[in-house]
Every structure is written in structure tokens, then in C-alpha cells.
């Protein structure tokens, strides 16, 4: 009987333990998800609220949703006496696209050869140059922005897409080189040497071996670089005008003189997040892998 009891106790204890473990895991997952998603959900809810609901105390989860805030982004005029905005938002959205795509493309074009050089060759001052390239990422924007403003005004780059694309190299280029360099180093030397024996020049090795093999890494670099560009605020604030403002600067325009249009700001935030959402879902499975590869070496 005692033996039996002991025999029976073990599986019970195990299943009990397993239940505890599963509950703990469940709780942890819920906490993690709530923490990560709640602010996003809250912004989404705010974007669907009318001004009265936004100011309600305590905050309301149940309300009659309205698409007025989204309509205001595109059409400008808001129904009723609520203040109207001129629909510059579509223009800002387009600007964000042009600048971010342009900046990332330029960074990748200039970054690939640089990363290749740092990954494959040994040459004097290599580490110094690598640190120098990287160090542009350290600079507090305050130290740059007024001199850049002057420079841009002088050379007609102020308030142009091209100028912003150049300025955004501060954000993306060091990062791109850093990431790509790590990916290139991942590719075994033997593969490259084999290609060289087959008569490939360095260019052939780069285009036929290295680039195809590091496509996932390049994809991740592009996506993350795109996100950094898309979220940039200080540089475009100082270096762009209305014709070239991106959505980040556009979103704070909903702070007006006598009121803040929280609903429209939230709607703008949600719309502005869409391209990143689509892009990152497309390459989601590469992101973790890419981040890893970028991280080692």
C-alpha cells in the first residue's frame, strides 16, 4: 500500500509541477504581451476616439468609434467645430518614403564595398578606420545640427530630399557598415577562395558569392535602417521645410495653440507605422537570425 502510494505520488507531483510551470509560462507570456502591446493598443484606441472620449475620466474602453481622425489626415477638414488641419499628411508620408528609401539605398550602396573591405582585407589603420566610421553614430545631434543647417543653406541642400538623404547617412551608414561587415565575415573564406581560383576578381567574389549568401542579413539591415530613418525626428525638424517634412515632424503638428489633437496624432502614428509593419512582417523570420549574425564578430 505504501509502495503503491509512493508509486502513484510521483506522476501526480510531476503533473502538479507541470501545471505550475505552464501557469507560470502563461502568466509570463501575458505580462510580456501586455507590456509590449498595451501602449500600441492604447494609441490605436485613441485614434478611434472622438475628443470627448479622449478626455473622459476615467479613461474609457467602451466608446463609439469614429474614423474622423483618419479622415482628417487625408481630407483635412474635421467635421463640427473641431479645428481643421490642412491635409499635408499624405505629402509627409510620401516624403518619409522618399527619404527613408533613398537613405537606405545610398547607405547600402556605399556600405557594401566598405563592409567588404573591412571584412576581407587586412590593411594599416583598419581598426582605426572602422572605429572612425562607427563613431559618427556617437555624435549627439546637438553638436551637428546648427552647422549642418548652415552648410545645407549654403549649398542649397536645405529643404530638399537629397539633402535629407545625405544627412540621414549619419543615422544609417555606420550602422549598415557595422551590420554588413559581420554578415560578410560569416561567409567561409574557402568559398571565396574557390571562386577566386575559378577566375573571379574581387568584384566577382562580391557579386557572385558574398551578396547572394548574405541576402537575409542585407534584408534585415535594410529593414532596421529603414525603421531608424522613418523614426528620425531632430534632423528633419531642422533641415527640412514643409515640402520635405516626414511623418514624425508631421505628427507633432497636432499640438496646436489652444488644444492638442490627440486623436489625430494617434491616427497619424498608426498610419505611419504601417509601412514598417508590412516590411517587418515580410521578413520577420529573418530578423532574429539577421540580428544575431550582425551581432557576432
Amino acid at each position, binding site marked *: 500500500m505504501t509502495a503503491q502510494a509512493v508509486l502513484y505520488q510521483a506522476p501526480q507531483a510531476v503533473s502538479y509541477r507541470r501545471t505550475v510551470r505552464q501557469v507560470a509560462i502563461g502568466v509570463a*507570456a501575458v505580462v510580456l504581451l501586455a507590456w509590449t502591446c498595451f501602449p500600441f493598443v492604447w494609441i490605436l484606441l485613441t485614434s478611434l476616439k472622438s475628443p470627448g472620449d479622449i478626455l473622459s475620466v476615467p479613461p474609457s474602453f467602451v466608446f463609439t468609434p469614429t474614423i474622423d481622425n483618419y479622415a482628417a489626415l487625408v481630407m483635412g477638414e474635421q467635421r463640427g467645430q473641431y479645428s481643421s488641419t490642412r491635409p499635408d499628411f499624405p505629402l509627409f508620408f510620401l516624403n518619409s518614403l522618399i527619404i527613408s528609401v533613398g537613405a537606405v539605398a545610398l547607405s547600402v550602396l556605399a556600405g557594401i564595398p566598405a563592409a567588404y573591405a573591412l571584412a576581407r582585407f587586412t*590593411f594599416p589603420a583598419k581598426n582605426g578606420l572602422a*572605429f572612425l566610421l562607427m563613431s559618427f553614430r556617437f555624435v549627439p545631434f546637438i553638436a551637428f545640427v546648427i552647422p549642418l543647417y548652415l552648410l545645407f543653406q549654403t549649398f542649397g541642400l536645405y529643404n530638399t530630399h537629397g539633402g535629407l538623404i545625405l544627412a540621414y547617412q549619419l543615422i544609417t551608414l555606420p550602422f549598415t557598415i557595422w551590420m554588413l561587415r559581420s554578415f560578410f565575415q560569416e561567409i567561409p573564406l574557402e568559398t571565396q577562395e574557390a571562386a577566386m581560383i575559378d577566375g573571379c576578381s574581387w568584384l566577382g567574389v562580391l557579386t557572385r558569392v558574398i551578396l547572394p549568401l548574405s541576402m537575409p542579413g542585407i534584408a534585415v539591415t535594410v529593414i532596421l535602417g529603414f525603421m531608424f530613418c522613418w523614426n528620425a525626428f531632430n534632423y528633419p525638424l531642422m533641415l527640412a521645410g514643409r515640402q520635405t517634412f516626414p511623418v514624425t515632424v508631421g505628427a507633432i503638428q497636432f499640438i496646436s495653440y489652444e488644444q492638442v489633437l490627440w486623436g489625430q496624432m494617434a491616427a497619424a502614428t498608426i498610419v505611419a507605422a504601417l509601412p514598417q509593419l508590412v516590411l517587418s512582417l515580410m521578413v520577420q523570420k529573418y530578423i532574429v537570425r539577421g*540580428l544575431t549574425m550582425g551581432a557576432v564578430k
Partner: protein
Amino acid sequence: MSTTRKRRHWRRERLLPYLLLAPALVLLAGMVYPFLLGLYYSFTSYWLQYPNRFRFVWLDNYLSLIEEPLFARALEFTLGFTLAAVVIQVGLGLAVALFLHARIPGRAAIRALMLLPLMIPPVITALMWKIMMGSTNAGILNYLLSFLGVDPVNWFGSTQGAIVSVLIIDTWGNLPFVSLILLGGLQALPTEPYEAARVDGAGPIDILRYVTLPLLSPFIVLVVLFRTMDSLRIFDVIYATTLGGPNDATTNLHIMAYQYSFQWYQMGKGMAQAIVLLILVVIISYLLMRLWNRASESTA
């Protein structure tokens, strides 16, 4: 014949890396001029609304920082905040990464959702959090906490509260980045050491301590490096929520330099503060980078 070819080849090999680096260097070289101009301003009395008083003042702007009581506080907050942010974010990030590394249901979905915070500009993130952190139950956080029986938290209205609030917002925005890098690192670890440890009868805590953490160290140092660099010059979140207040509790060097240059238009002083911050970031990054090189060499 063979030697000249070799030499030519060698010379080409020697020049090639520089040629490859050239486009990137040229692009960034355009940024060197504005930097030098900023550096020059830091040695002048440049004050926007008094163009006639522009003089070269040597190190005056730097020396005057010593007498500026706010500078010491800002320096202290810059370093203290960075330390806290890095410890908290890397610690939590590690926990999240270990959690997501375990075989749990819905892992892929959670991982995808972890990317959400990266998609909202920090300025907007901060503004929205500030609304959520309303001091009475007008703020959603205090309202939700009231169901748990927690008294309303004075998020931004007190000095400690403001520091904690900024930390929370910054952590929300950056935790995904940290945990995803560490998660990637976990997935790349070799399996043999684990099997060996299990054969030796090591418990989960021992495995974490003696196997996982040492193997993961290059990744940890890497996220520490990135987070340190960004935390030292954190700007957007503080700018959008407290602008350094209350009682200067959240004024870091970047915010201080901003106030001098853009609120008070004392470009000379503001630039000197920005340069001090830059030097700080470069020194700390350099040390961490060396640490990272060593960590990744020792595990390679």
C-alpha cells in the same frame, strides 16, 4: 616577370580596401566639416542674438562648466541614468530572451509582436506614455492600477517619479531590440557544452551561470555597447516628456546642451557641452568596443 606581377597585384591589393572604403568615407566626410564648425563654435562666445559680441574665447566655455552647478547634476544624471537603463534593459532583455528561447506555445507570434515598439517614433512614444501616465485616474495606468488596489502613482510630478517614468518609457522602446539580439545569440550557441553539463548533472541555474552566460558574453557586451551609446545621449523621450524637469531631475548633458543652444541661443556654451558629451560617449564606447573585441575573440 613573376615578381613584378606579384608586386603589382600586391600594390592593387594594398590600395583596393581604401578604394572600397572611399564612397562611405566621402559621404561621411561631408559631415566632418559641420562637426569642425561646431567644435570651433565651442571655443567662441557665439550667442545668436548678439552677433556683435562674437569672440574667440579659447577654453572659457569649457572652464565655465566647472562653476555651473547644473553641469555636475547633468553629468551625474547622464551617467546614473545610463547605468540604470543598461542594467535594467539588458537584465530584462536577457530574461525575455531566455523565455522566448524556451519552447513555449505562440512563440513566433510573441516574437513578431515584440517588434511593435520599434515602429513608433520615440517622440510620439513619449508623448503617448505621458498621457497614459496621467497623475490621477485620468491616466490609464493609474486607473488600471487602481483595480489592483495600488494608490495613484505620481509619475511625472515628482523628481524620482519622473526619473522612473523616463526609464520605463525608454525601456519599453528598447527592450525588443535588446531581447531580440540576445535571443538570436541564444539560438546560435553550440549544443555540445549543454550536453556535457547535463551529463555532469548540472541544474538549470548552474547551466545558466556556467554555460549560457559565458557563451553569450559577446552578445551581452554588444547590447551593452549599443544601449550605453544611446542612453548616454538620450534626448527624444526626455524632450517630449519633462524637458529636464522637474527640479532639473531629468536634465542630462544632451538636454542641457539643447537648452543652452536652442532655448537660450548660447551656441558657444551649448556646443562645448555637446563636445563634452561626445568625448564621454567616445571614451566609454571605445572601452566597451575593446571589451567586445576581447569577448568575441575569447569565445571564437
